[in-house]
């Protein structure tokens, strides 16, 4: 099968392939549907507003659920009085939560009091269901909770100090979600500080740090800070639950029908087979929607109590304060290098807070990206009285890249080297080598001295790289059906949160069956269908498309036999091309796909197949061939009068194995870049230290970009064949936004000659940094 990068090192590699799986595809050039710019199959439903999201689900007799949330950030609950709410006209059910299933929890599982302690402002306590959203809103205000208020801490630095109010009195743990955040189990806490985590799936420390620094001719020590970013999917978290006496249907705005089902079954002690989760359209997720959540449990109880379906959608404020976020970080970095640029040692020490949750590490990018013989990391989680973090588009690595990629840029400055040339020297990744070359050509990269522009508005250029591992999930099964009228159907529980999963499934099956995308109907997002992976870790395309192709291939074999019967030959003599079965040596003897199906003896044929381990011995849980690298280039202009930054253009060079749908991949990259620019310049969750409440739980003061903030973006998409599966595809969602913020930060440095060490890079920080630099010069 094809192996390598076209125009660079494309070759053929032999792989052992399971007998039930199809022979390898040739490179995309030779394919008809895969690797093309195919229109989304669900676009019609979306532009006409007929796509039904969870927020749009209306069931007969449906009630509206609402949560009562803690008004203070840290407390013990003395009493809860729900009687007035219970008696309010139009209220059908009231429920008080007995445990928190989000965030970290004590290992013992023992409860110190009747109600969960309040650990952040906005933590859910109780909820109710009423005939309308308005009535629910009115009734929720009648719930009375008596608190014993405790001291609280919301700031990362203050929470680390001895004597700070302690969020968790005992050691805690938390299962990682399918979003790919790193949570090392069993670590101890001291005060609010848990850890350090020193290991990852790449292993633990390597080499000898002291020796490495002793060998260094240059040592750079810097501290970088990143802020808390919230996911802000346009559709908030939410569910509609119809408990129906234990024969449950849950409509969920989720990234994982599978996990939502499993969580629900566990919370209510039901067999998984009695819980059906449906998620036909999900309005974005970005890592925050991997689980049922407290709100889902609440909706379940309210539906169970009332005997009616209950819809519970979070509002925008609840989404900000309780539905997950990208933890912040402070990263102490120490880098040793030789004068020629070769790294001798890299030490990373980080603290971050995911509020009452775990997963505030800064990823493995520092460990994995560069050739450095001596490496050690220590990553601490710090608890604060804030809503739990969640996996967020390349969790950890986005924070880690901001520090690492500026640090490398600083090394280049110290060595008076082109930062691109330095990376060329210390980065052994083949794919990034190609990405650097092609990206630099497209960008027109020529090294420019920092702060060299005249005039108040200065331009600057910057580059940064990303690393994201390929991960595979074997819970990826697809059923392919054909029907007598010619219909082809693809079924899987996998959901499409906007990334385009439906369309790539249609493409892969169409390619295998010699059809067009529109000939294939894709039904997904329902746990009645075969199990599918969660939409996290950029796993989906790499996991589910081989299953789809394998199932289609099995179906094709069946159809070949059928065609052989009709054409009076052996199955081996038949070709399927452009919707027609024909004899290999006599094209005149043929039967069309539709005609063949019409003559089936049965109404429907069904084939099912799953993802197998990667070909070539790359097992699940290990890192396969290659990786999902990327290199991004940014040009910015900085107004030194006002501190205003405009990202003028970006060039993004990416790879994701065999690309399946070029348009969708580009859209994911564009979206990742915007999210990265927003992370670099705008978005910042601000919690008031004196009250513990978020000051900007809205879209007015939590600044997401509009189209005006979007630069010119050019994409270099590189095909990278690895012979890993029957489609050899990989995801792209996460690699898309790792390199953006450091590329922008490096470009800002290049523009003004002053480096900004903490995110977001606001006009005020730029002005302050320029003034500081000026004052230093004056001294």
């Amino acid at each position: 099968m094809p192996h390598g990068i076209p125009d660079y090192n494309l070759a053929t590699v032999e792989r052992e392939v399971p007998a039930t799986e199809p022979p390898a595809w040739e490179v995309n050039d030779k394919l008809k549907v895969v690797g093309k710019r195919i229109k989304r199959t669900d676009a019609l439903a979306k532009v006409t507003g007929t796509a039904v999201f969870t927020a749009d689900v209306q069931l007969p007799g449906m009630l509206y659920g609402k949560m009562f949330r803690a008004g203070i950030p840290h407390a013990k609950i003395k009493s809860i009085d729900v009687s007035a709410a219970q008696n309010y006209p139009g209220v059908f059910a009231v429920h008080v939560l007995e445990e928190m299933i989000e965030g970290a929890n004590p290992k013992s599982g023992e409860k110190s009091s009747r109600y969960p302690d309040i650990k952040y402002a906005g933590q859910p306590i109780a909820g109710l269901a009423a005939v309308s959203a308005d009535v629910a809103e009115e009734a929720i205000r009648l719930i009375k909770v008596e608190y014993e208020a405790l001291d609280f801490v919301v700031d990362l630095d203050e929470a680390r100090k001895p004597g700070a109010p302690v969020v968790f009195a005992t050691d805690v743990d938390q299962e990682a979600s399918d979003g790919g955040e790193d949570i090392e189990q069993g670590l101890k806490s001291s005060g609010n500080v848990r850890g350090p985590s020193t290991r990852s799936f790449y292993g633990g420390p390597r080499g000898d740090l002291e020796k490495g620094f002793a060998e260094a001719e240059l040592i750079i020590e810097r501290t970088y800070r990143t802020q808390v970013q919230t996911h802000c999917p346009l559709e908030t978290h939410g569910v509609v639950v119809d408990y129906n006496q234990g024969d449950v249907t849950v409509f969920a705005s989720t990234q994982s029908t599978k996990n939502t089902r499993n969580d629900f079954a566990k919370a209510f002690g039901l067999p998984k087979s009695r819980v059906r989760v449906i998620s036909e359209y999900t309005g974005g997720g970005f890592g925050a929607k991997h689980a049922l959540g407290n709100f889902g449990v609440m909706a379940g109880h309210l539906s169970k109590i009332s005997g009616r379906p209950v819809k519970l959608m979070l509002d925008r404020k609840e989404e900000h304060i309780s539905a997950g976020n990208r933890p912040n970080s402070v990263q102490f970095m120490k880098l040793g290098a030789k004068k020629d640029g070769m790294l001798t040692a890299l030490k990373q020490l980080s603290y971050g807070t995911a509020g009452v949750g775990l997963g505030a590490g800064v990823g493995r990018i520092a460990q994995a990206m560069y050739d450095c013989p001596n490496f050690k990391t220590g990553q601490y989680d710090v608890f604060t009285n804030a809503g739990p973090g969640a996996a967020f588009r390349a969790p950890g690595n986005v924070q880690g890249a901001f520090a690492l990629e500026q640090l490398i840029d600083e090394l280049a400055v110290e060595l008076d080297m082109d930062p691109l040339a330095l990376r060329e020297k210390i980065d052994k990744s083949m794919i990034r080598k190609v990405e650097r070359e092609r990206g630099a050509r497209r960008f027109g990269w020529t090294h420019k001295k920092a702060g060299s522009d005249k005039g108040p508005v200065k331009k600057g250029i910057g580059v940064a790289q990303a690393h994201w591992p390929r991960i595979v999930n074997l819970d990826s099964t697809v059923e392919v059906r054909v029907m007598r009228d010619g219909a082809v159907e693809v079924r899987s529980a996998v959901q499409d949160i906007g990334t385009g999963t439906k369309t790539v499934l249609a493409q892969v099956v169409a390619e295998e069956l010699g059809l067009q995308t529109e000939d294939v109907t894709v039904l997904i997002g329902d746990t009645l269908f075969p199990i599918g992976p969660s939409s996290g870790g950029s796993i989906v395309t790499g996991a589910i498309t081989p299953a789809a192709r394998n199932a289609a291939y099995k179906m094709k074999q069946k159809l070949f036999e059928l065609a052989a019967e009709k054409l009076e030959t052996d199955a081996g003599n038949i070709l399927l091309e452009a919707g027609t079965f024909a004899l290999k040596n006599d094209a005149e003897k043929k039967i069309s796909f539709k005609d063949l199906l019409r003559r089936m003896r049965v109404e429907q044929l069904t084939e099912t197949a799953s993802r197998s381990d990667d070909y070539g011995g790359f097992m699940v849980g290990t890192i396969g061939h290659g990786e999902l690298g990327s290199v991004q280039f940014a040009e910015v202009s900085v107004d030194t009068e006002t501190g205003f930054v405009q990202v003028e253009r970006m060039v993004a060079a990416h790879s994701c194995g065999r690309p399946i749908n070029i348009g969708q991949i580009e859209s994911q990259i564009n979206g990742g870049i915007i999210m990265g620019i927003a992370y670099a310049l705008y978005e910042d969750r601000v919690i008031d230290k004196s009250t513990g409440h978020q000051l900007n739980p809205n879209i007015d003061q939590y600044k997401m970009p509009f189209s005006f903030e979007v630069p010119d973006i050019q994409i270099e998409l590189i095909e990278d064949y690895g012979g890993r599966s029957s489609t050899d595809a990989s995801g792209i969602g996460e690699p898309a936004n790792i390199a953006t913020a450091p590329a922008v930060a490096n470009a800002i440095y290049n523009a003004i000659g002053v480096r900004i060490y903490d995110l977001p890079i606001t006009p005020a920080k730029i002005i302050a940094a320029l003034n500081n630099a000026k004052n230093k010069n004056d001294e």
Partner: protein
Amino acid sequence: MIEFILNNKHIQTNEPPGMPLLDFIRYTMDLTGTKSGCREGDCGACTVMEGSLNNNELKYKTIVSCLTPLGNVQGKHIVTVEGLNMNHLSPAQKAIVEQGGTQCGFCTPGFVVSLTSHSLTDDAGDPEKTRAALDGNICRCTGYKSIERAATALADSFSGRNGENTLEQLVATGHLPAYFNGIAERLKKIRKLAEPMKTNGILLAGGTDLLVQKSDEIAEGELTFLQDKKELKGIAVQDNICTIGAATTAAEISGSAELQAHFPALQSHFKLISSTPIRNMGTLGGNLVNASPIGDLSIFFLALDAELKLQDNKGKQRRISLKDFFLNYKKLALKSREIIESLRFRLPEKDEYFNFEKVSKRQHLDIASVNTAIHLHIENDFITKAALAAGGVSPVPFFLVKTSKFLTGQRLDEATLLQANEIMQDEISPISDIRGSEAYKRLLLRQLFFAHFLTIKPELFKLRNLLTK
């Protein structure tokens, strides 16, 4: 009872007039194509088109349905994405499909409505203005590039068209469903509520601030809708005095040819104010009464030394200078049951210069960290008259009396500006908040103050000199 047309359906409803239109659409009418994303007018997922008759002419614009009380749509035509669907895709829908302009799709109906509404304007063939019409819609997935391409493709489809872009033509070309042809006649039949001017309960104009601040009270309380009061609307110029009715929207102000003639940069100034749907809704009077210390229109008109005409519920009128209108943080020189009827100011003449500047973290749909406007009369390089206003640097929209006074009579040179800055810094009292620290706001106002002069007389000043001295 409220009567209007929703898509192709005649509506008569007894739902409370303070009910958000969004809830009526989604819950009462079960039309779920219009999405709820933030309920504060900031995301655009709930954007709908509003058509209204003005002198028998039917005009459409976008509004956010979450901040539109039902009472404000009396006698109007409201169009959701369902009301745009035909048995083929409209060019706006098609452009989004073809260019891959959807990902998760939750924001998509809002974009379809914004694009379609823009198709009904005279700027339909202008790609840049078509993209600008999307300034109130957030997409979290696509990175906007595909949506920009869709906007460009849609605009291109209009270029080279002859004649006016009338509703009939748009129906004929498949941009709009056929029922649009009958809407004007149907709207004429809807009884106008010829209510006397009363000022009971909550007074509400565009609703863009009030529905965020007081949604509960509005949902249940008594309301007086001012937005469509004829006597409060319109822009008139007589003897070089411009009078603007308090219910005139920001979009109507920036779209006024008369004002554009006197303020060449008017449209680019107003682009910095909020977003298209909010400018279509928010009124001059509402912006002033909201009394935000950084209200863009307050700052704009303070520098023009505008005067307000107030009216109480007995019809008694009085005039007050805008400078005297803002007493303290959110405190106004407005008596109980008194409303702003109109604002008037003298239009700038020869040798007069006006400029508006604003800086915020994100460029659009943003509340400023600091904004400022200046109005200068310059003769022979001397400032003969100066009026400077600034927002975000005081508890009220601030007219800088001392700085203005100082500037008057000074030679237009760098020394004057540097001295003026010192007076200005003494005069203002910014506080640190989520929009910026005190020090940053001070610095920002200095830069914006200098920027005024660099814009007005670029040949006279070098920023370098101003900053290094």
